[in-house]
């Protein structure tokens, strides 16, 4: 169990955030998480996360609803505050490594009636490289077009995004991540609500990224395809239940631990904590 007080106070690390990680962590992993706890409104949603990612793997993050899958990748990218713990991307804090990270948020998280076309959205993937106040350059447009080509959406570059199907919207999001040209990718349910053809196309692109030495994390729901898609797994339910090569960890026993009833005890404890804080 983590020191409970950490949940109530933010960032009470004794060590400097930029200090090297402890002996047990490799110094140059794509992603290292050291003893991370995340809480929303005093209710812990992730406990004691310890993790080191192998490089060049397609890594699935699976777990039931409310297991903290999205929160895990958001906490890594500083999008939600951590109650404690440290995160390193290739040995340095996230803020220094932004350009190495690509992100595909959940498709429902944005307003698809926004007045932009597919190319505009993909070009947003280049903004981090362009920098504040500078205009979009021709090479960025070209990179965005190239990314659209790779996901088979070049013909839709000038289509307003609300006129794309769910699968096409997801491809546009993937193209945007490709345009980020990152070394490590976090994708939040890229297969949600897409047709079979799109799912196949996306997985082919992800595998191509792995071939080129990128590391890709994918929040995933469909247990049937897990063995087929992922080299590595993180099985999550508020804490890491199991992690490692899919063939080793994707077992009935681990699935039961991840999705089964036992962990509701932890959830109950988290609820109790939240209630205690409310009084």
């Amino acid at each position, binding site marked *: 169990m983590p020191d409970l007080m950490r949940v109530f106070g933010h960032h009470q690390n004794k060590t400097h955030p930029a200090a090297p990680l402890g002996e047990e962590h490799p110094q140059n992993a794509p992603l290292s998480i050291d003893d991370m706890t995340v809480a929303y409104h005093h209710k812990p949603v992730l406990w004691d996360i310890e993790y080191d990612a192998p490089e060049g793997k397609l890594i699935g993050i699976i777990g039931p609803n409310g297991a903290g899958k999205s929160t895990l990748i958001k906490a890594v990218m500083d999008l939600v505050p951590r109650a404690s713990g440290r995160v390193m991307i290739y040995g340095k804090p996230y803020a220094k490594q*932004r350009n190495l990270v690509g992100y595909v948020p959940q498709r429902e998280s944005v307003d698809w009636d926004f007045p932009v076309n597919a190319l*505009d959205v993909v070009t947003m993937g280049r903004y*981090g490289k362009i920098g504040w*106040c500078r205009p979009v350059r021709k090479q960025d447009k070209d990179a965005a077009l190239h990314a659209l080509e790779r996901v088979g959406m070049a013909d839709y570059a000038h289509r307003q995004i609300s006129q794309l199907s769910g699968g096409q919207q997801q491809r546009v999001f993937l193209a945007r991540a490709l345009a980020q040209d990152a070394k490590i990718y976090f994708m939040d349910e890229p297969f949600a609500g897409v047709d079979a053809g799109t799912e196949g196309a996306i997985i082919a692109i992800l595998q191509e990224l792995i071939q080129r030495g990128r590391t890709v994390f994918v929040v995933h729901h469909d247990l049937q395809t897990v063995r087929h898609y992922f080299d590595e797994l993180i099985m999550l339910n508020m804490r890491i239940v199991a992690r490692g090569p899919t063939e080793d960890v994707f077992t009935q026993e681990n699935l039961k631990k991840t999705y089964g009833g036992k962990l509701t005890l932890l959830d109950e404890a988290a609820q109790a904590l939240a209630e205690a804080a409310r009084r």
Partner: protein
Amino acid sequence: MDTWIVVAGALSAVACAIPGNFLVLRRMSMMGDAISHAVLPGLAIAFLMTDSRSGLTMFIGAAVVGLLTAVFTQWVNHFGKVEESASMGVVFTTLFAIGLVIIVRAADHVDLDPGCVLYGAIELVPLDTLVLMGLEMPRVVLTLGIVLIINLLFTVLFFKELRITSFDPNLANSMGVNANLVHYAVMSIVAVTTVACFESVGSILVIAMLIVPPAIAYLLTDRLYVMVPLSAAIAVLCAVLGHVLAIIGPSLVGFGDRSTNTAGMMAVVAGLLFVVTLIFAPRHGVLSRWLHQRSLGLSMLREDVLGLIYRLEEHDPQQTVVAPRVLRQALGIGPLTRGIAMRGLIRAGLMRRRNRLYEITETGRHKARNLVRSHRLWESYLHRHADVLAGHVHPTAELLEHVTTPRMQEELAAGVESSGSDPHGKSIPPPV
């Protein structure tokens, strides 16, 4: 003198409309409302503290309170567990009330009229002038001009950042474009603009100009970089038409030669323009959507005619022509709709006229066979794979046949295997 009124109206309208785009797109339209009311205590306190009505102090006071409105709203939203618009409502009404209390309490030595804050006094604009570079112009015009330039610079310089933080704040944050920072920058711009426009057009018009021109532009375009200048153009149009209407409007409705308030008329014009756009906008307008629905209905009807003729022919191979009466009875359509549908079919070369009857062409027959094939494939598929009773499959198949692509047809055919006939025992025509 009138020119300056129009110039002041147009400047404030454009200055409001530009940041207004981002309020509309961030679904925060009410924030304009909130900030424009909430700055009142800022104005009052600034006045009480410095005892002067100099532009700058009032500006700073109001801008600070405007920004506080945004901050308080986020707090109430976060800690009070109420939705954003509700927390805005709580914050700005409270601040507005405080402002009123301060003004009334200090009424003896405050020369600040709440009515003027609401409606403005654009007619008085030309009276208070200064000379800049040899040109005599109203003080307000200079202030508004400066604010407009600030807003333009802000929008052009940070266009990329405004776009990404409005569309996908998570991605923006992950790239180091701080969405919160941009949010407060927009709020500051709105606060400053609001204060600058108070004197001339009043807070009601500020709210209208923040929201209505961008909302009109949003109906007309799908590109952000078109939407922003378009909203500015619409804002200018509102100002000019508003002033013209203010002069001639009252006599039009029989109020003699009295003119009415330009600011008020600008809001009226904006509202009217919105209604007109809502009806006539090319793609998102009510009319074009109705026309689209209607043309969709017509194209389905044309296909139904073809399907009907195919079935008649199937029933009795001698029956190659069809009388208008049959169409009316089988499809339940009147002469007008029938006329439009048949003209479309003839123009497409699918049917031709023979005497007073209609005859299907070879191309038409091909198309008809394909439709009937889709229809019967769907019936079989629904019956076999979706457990729909044989008697219930027709209406669904009737709808789906119109949207069946060749690829779908192939998959359907594979799905029902080569049974050759539909649940009613009719044979499925082979592929064309």
